[in-house]
């Protein structure tokens, strides 16, 4: 990736031909002079309004509509039935549904294991790549490839790779362990399927975590290490007291992004296992999709969507506050 330069040195003279004397004049006369053209306020509004408008239209207005729907019995495939206002029935249905709690559990397990693995492997890779051996830039790019694919396409072609009879994965395993290839099915067995989705997700997103950790490692200034060398701190000590603490904010950022993404995960798992066998890999997004777009229970699924959103929002909020505290340390 190339070593990052530690200072930004833009060529001052080339910036729009702005003259040195002008800059010092600007520094002296700080109170803003009335500038030509649109006023600053107008520009601020003009610049922010389209974004806010778009987000209001595509995110907020539908969210409000959805909150309204969650109190109704709307079922799109039976729209001829009179629309009933059911109050909190949908919500209590969901919160009392045992099966749904199991789905949340499944999703939580998926998030915890996949993000955990990605953090460990990603961080390790970042540390190694940071050694900057010859050709590291090339190999880093190779490692990045899995995350450039569409998760749906990934889920789909891994079904071929995991086929016991015709896929290479089982044969590879049997080469190393002697277990016959047809004797197990990664996507078909209750014991294996949850680990299979963790495996594929880790394969896909470890490079992402690695990049974040790499950026974190590169942001540690060299002089800190040099000072530690002078103090004759061992490599291990340096890792524990310098590297790790200074990269923790980046790690936490990586965990935040990946956890949010994996909580929302739908396409890769749906195409890999359809939530099966049975419901052992059915994540909440899959349940939501089935309720909303296969059973067409719009009211019910709106309630579920709101519950999920509140969960993620609340968790993310708490986490970001913790992250900010860590950053300030």
């Amino acid at each position, binding site marked *: 990736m190339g070593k990052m330069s530690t200072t930004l040195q833009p060529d001052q003279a080339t910036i729009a031909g702005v003259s040195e004397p002008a800059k010092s004049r600007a520094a002296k006369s700080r109170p803003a002079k009335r500038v030509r053209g649109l006023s600053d306020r107008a520009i601020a509004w003009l610049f922010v309004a389209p974004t806010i408008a778009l987000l209001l239209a595509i995110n907020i207005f539908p969210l409000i509509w959805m909150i309204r729907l969650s109190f109704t019995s709307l079922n799109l495939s*039976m729209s001829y039935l009179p629309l009933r206002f059911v109050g909190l029935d949908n919500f209590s249905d969901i919160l009392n549904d045992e099966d749904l709690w199991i789905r949340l559990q499944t999703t939580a397990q998926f998030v915890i294991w996949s993000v955990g693995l990605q953090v460990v492997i990603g961080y390790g890779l970042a540390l190694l790549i940071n050694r900057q051996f010859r050709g590291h830039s090339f190999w880093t790019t190779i490692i990045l490839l899995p995350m450039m694919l569409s998760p749906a396409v990934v889920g789909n072609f891994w079904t071929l790779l995991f086929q016991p009879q015709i896929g290479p994965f089982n044969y590879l395993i049997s080469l190393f362990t002697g277990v016959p290839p047809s004797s197990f099915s990664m*996507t078909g067995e209750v014991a294996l399927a949850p680990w299979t989705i963790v495996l594929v997700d880790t394969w896909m997103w470890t490079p992402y975590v690695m990049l974040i950790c790499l950026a974190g490692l590169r942001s540690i200034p060299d002089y800190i290490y040099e000072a530690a060398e002078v103090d004759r701190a061992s490599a291990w000590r340096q890792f524990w007291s310098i590297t790790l603490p200074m990269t923790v904010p980046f790690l936490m950022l990586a965990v935040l992004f990946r956890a949010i993404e994996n909580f929302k995960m739908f396409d890769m798992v749906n195409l890999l296992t*359809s939530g099966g*066998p049975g*419901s052992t890999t059915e994540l909440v997004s899959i349940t939501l999709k089935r309720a909303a777009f*296969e059973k067409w229970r719009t009211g019910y699924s709106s309630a579920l969507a709101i519950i999920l959103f509140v969960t993620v929002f609340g968790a993310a909020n708490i986490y970001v506050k913790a992250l900010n505290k860590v950053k300030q340390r």
Partner: protein
Amino acid sequence: MRTLKWLGNTTASVALGAAVLGLFGGGEAAAQGKQLTLCWAAWDPANALVELGKDFTKQSGIEMKYEFVPWTSYADRFLNELNSHGKLCDLLIGDSQWIGGAAENKWYLKLNDFFDKEHISMDDFVQATVVGYSEWPKNSPNYWALPAMADAVGWTYRKDWFSRPDIQSAFKAKYGRDLAPPKTYDELKQIAEFFQGREIDGKKVYGAYIFTERGSEGITMGVTNVLYNYGFSYDNPKKAYQMQGFVNSADAAKGLEFYKGLYKCCTAPGLTNAYMQEGLDAFKSGQVAMQMNWFAFFPGLYKDPNVGGDKIGFFVNPAGPNGHFTQLGGQGISVVANSDHKDDALAYIKWFAQPAVQQKWWQLGGYSALKAVVDAPDFPKSAAFAPQFLESMGIVKDFWAEPSYAQLLLDMQKRVHDYVVADKGTGQQALDLLVKDWTKVFKEQGKEVASQ
């Protein structure tokens, strides 16, 4: 930096152009001449329909466009399309179970007046197909589709393996009877166990292939073939929507256990989420002795260079201790109410309903539902699977066709797959939970559900 700038400029212009195209060029190019879009599932009969449709284009000058979607996303995609009032499809060959929803939601055009005007009589079609593909409410003369594709679940088997003397004698020695296509499910299980793991032509083969697909409708369409024959019924024939004791009777639980037993003992490994296409693959590559699949595929299988012709045989879904039925498949062709070309679409249906066209439909690989075609004296000889098809169409039973059918189907998919493939609970428990699920669905619709 320069590469960046160049890339930036190019990308920006591409992106800008794309944005403009997207914003203003959203519609498709103006069609030259008349056009109809027909939507169906992507399978062999659809290809046959494309061939057949060339005649229509020649006759009427209307060009036919097709939108075929794989079975696993067929219901998803087209129910979504209907729900979103899309204009993609003028004609839709929708699944038989959609009739209730399509009629109630006014997604399809009601065809009674059209049939009267064009003198198309539903008496000319096989009764089971009229009830199954066209009527809503059931058994009332309200028609929403023309029966287009008659279909049911049947079985294929490796006739060449069954005729090998060494295999025949080994079977006779073990079971004391001749090896022949099974008439009951117990016989089928015996045969499946016999072939499971046997070496034939240097390769290990397996006994049977059955449906296990989780996502859309696969495992349900497989398991009902056994359940019906063990005594499962959707509700009390005398009292609609009373399911307790009919869906989850002890006999029905036994039937479900039988299906699981068959899945565990005598199928190829790794097929935990398999439906039609995987069955074709498994049978064509010589992995299984017997395959459960839809009659729709049998013409293609018969023509297959590896396993067709003399090597393939067919048999009707075997009977169980309490009945002899088979799962109804098939679809009717309907006019989408939201279409802008309703008159042209009706012209297509009028053309399709002609006896000569129906006859050609059968010859090309489709399954006509016209009595004139299937009751013709030489029909049983017209194809190797014709007699089995005729017999099957006489014993068909269908899943719920209620407007809420999707919820009912998905509930059954979950409970059955949980038990059969994911080893959750017992068969009785699965069916008990299913009754609970279905009761909830019907109650939400405001239907009276009696418990006893």
